[in-house]
């Protein structure tokens, strides 16, 4: 029997039981649509996380002081007091893979402006901080190298802080008191939104690191050094150069652990991406269960169909159908069911994901891969779950089949 003939008779057979065929397909439709939508949501989440991470600046390396070890009692990350301004100068001078550098220190405290106040973190930075972080100024200016040298009493507000302290007017040119140190607001940062961990990146005040060090914390060492590599591919090079330099400067003998930690955005990005990937796989596997149930539905209906059409099988065999012809016929019927269901499911899944995007403002991404995957899955389900009933039909004895009531 030619394939075209088999296809035609498969369509006819399914047409004879439209409602049943549709209900059988529904299992596959829902399964495939769910897989597509879940993958779209998962990949959308992955994309937005990647976006947020790259918004931190892509070639960024952060050098943290390491753990202090006093007689075997280890103090945890950041407890050593080893990073100094001289380290910064040395890195800038001796590490060719390093582009920009911003020393960092930190203070917390209440900020008061007129009768308003707000508690937030104060980041002491260098003048290149914004460029490294790929951040911008909305109003006003950023402080300059001169401000940093002079430990000038200036600051730049994040949008959240600006809105909290100056709900009505522009903060630029106003004076705020940071822990009783009056500072002139020279600028307001652009909105950056949440970071990958959900923290509000705009709830911050930036000030020259020298100002924070000398006027707020009196802590003589640096909390971190923010460094940008000259290119993304130079990140490992920069990391190696900094490690070598700092080990030498800190006089760490070979085989002793570093007294500092260098983290780069790629590591952070990888961790976050891995998390969302797990999420995607989880969502897709839950959806696959419904696809599996749909497949069992196909098997069920095909088994009923074989029993119901035993006589038809007998007739076909009596006029010369071979076992192979019967097998192919029922396999193709199952395949047509699952394929039609699969295609409908893909359409439904794609439009459903679009609806989720526009209604729930949730980013969804439909990849060619996820469509191919669901399509392949539905073919596999048709063959897998169609084979047993088809084989059962093909193995029937023509005499018994003809006599079947």
């Amino acid at each position, binding site marked *: 029997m030619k394939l075209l003939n088999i296809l035609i008779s498969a369509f006819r057979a399914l047409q004879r039981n439209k409602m049943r065929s549709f209900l059988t397909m529904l299992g596959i439709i829902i399964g495939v649509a769910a897989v597509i939508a879940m993958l779209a949501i998962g990949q959308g989440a992955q994309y937005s996380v990647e976006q947020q991470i790259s918004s931190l600046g892509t070639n960024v390396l952060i050098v943290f002081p390491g753990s202090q070890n006093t007689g075997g009692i280890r103090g945890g990350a950041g407890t050593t007091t080893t990073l100094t301004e001289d380290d910064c100068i040395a890195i800038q001078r001796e590490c060719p893979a390093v582009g920009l550098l911003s020393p960092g220190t930190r203070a917390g405290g209440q900020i008061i402006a007129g009768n308003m106040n707000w508690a937030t973190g104060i980041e002491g930075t260098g003048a290149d901080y914004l460029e490294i972080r790929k951040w911008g100024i909305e109003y006003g200016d950023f402080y300059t190298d001169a401000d940093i040298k002079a430990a000038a009493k200036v600051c730049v507000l994040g949008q959240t802080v600006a809105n909290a302290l100056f709900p009505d007017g522009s903060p630029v040119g106003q004076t705020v008191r940071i822990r009783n140190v009056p500072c002139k607001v020279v600028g307001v940062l652009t909105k950056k939104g949440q970071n990958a961990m959900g923290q509000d990146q705009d709830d911050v005040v930036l000030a020259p690191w020298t100002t924070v060090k000398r006027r707020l914390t009196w802590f003589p060492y640096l909390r971190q050094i923010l460094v940008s590599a000259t290119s993304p591919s130079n990140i490992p090079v920069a990391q190696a150069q900094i490690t070598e330099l700092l080990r030498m400067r800190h006089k760490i003998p070979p085989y002793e652990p570093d007294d500092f930690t260098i983290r780069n955005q790629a590591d952070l990005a990888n961790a976050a991406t891995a998390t969302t990937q797990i999420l995607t796989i989880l969502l897709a596997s839950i959806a696959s269960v419904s696809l599996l149930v749909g497949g069992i539905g196909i098997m069920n209906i095909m088994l009923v169909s074989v029993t119901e059409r035993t006589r038809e099988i007998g007739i076909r065999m*009596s006029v*010369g159908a071979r076992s192979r012809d019967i097998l192919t016929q029922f396999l193709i019927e199952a395949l047509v069911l699952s394929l039609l269901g699969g295609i409908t499911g893909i359409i439904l899944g794609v439009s459903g994901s679009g609806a989720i995007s526009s209604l729930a403002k949730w980013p969804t991404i439909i990849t060619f891969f996820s469509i191919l995957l669901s399509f392949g899955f539905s073919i596999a389900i048709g063959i897998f779950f169609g084979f047993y009933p088809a084989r059962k039909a093909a193995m029937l004895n023509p005499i018994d089949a003809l006599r079947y009531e």
Partner: protein
Amino acid sequence: MTGVQNPYPPAGSDGLLIKIDHLAKTYMLGEVEVHALRGVSVGVRKGEFVAIMGASGSGKSTFMNILGCLDKPTKGTYILDGIDVSHLTRDELARIRNHKLGFVFQGFNLLSRTSAIENVELPLLYGDSSMKDREERAVRALNMVGLGDRVHHYPNQLSGGQQQRVAIARALVNDPSIVLADEPTGNLDSRTSVEVMGIFQELNEKGITVILVTHEPDIAQFAKRHIIFRDGRIKSDRLNSAPKLAAEVIDELPAVDEEEPA
């Protein structure tokens, strides 16, 4: 089918279309052996019209199944049109059924919700004819049984007699060597039965070999040869010197319009 001039042309080496030698069939019903056929030898020439009779359990149905290549004998040989089909595989038997045999059943066995022409085309789907060829041959077969005007009717739009004629057309469409009819009039009233027998007689006139299983002596009277089975053996095998002619019988029956369901 040029047998009109010579009703008994040689088919096998000895002129037999069907040559059956010491055919036996034993079934296992659980632990019990059932001897359905206990050594049957018979020959049929091309162009014959044979009625096979016998009580139920006589082995006639088993014999018919083997004759129709739907079943294999346990012992003995069956040579059909020069081919020994006793030991063929399932698929080879399917091919023989497709090329050499046409079946007509008691219950018509048409595919429901499938038009007359598609039912008739069914055997051709398992051959290698083109779509156009299939349609031509199916229409020709339907014309032969007088249903040229009901080509696109569905079985539920046809009377029992018409359905059986569709089945006969299906049996004919592949130009088979033999038409096997298993109680073809069992579900029909007497007038329609005679009409259907008339069609078999017409086909036989054209040289087609017809083998008919029936338990009704009236129906057997239309055949030219009677083979009677009993207890798995042939009890008698004789020629019917004066077969009844359906065309004459029908004139004697009271005229009743054929029932046509809406």
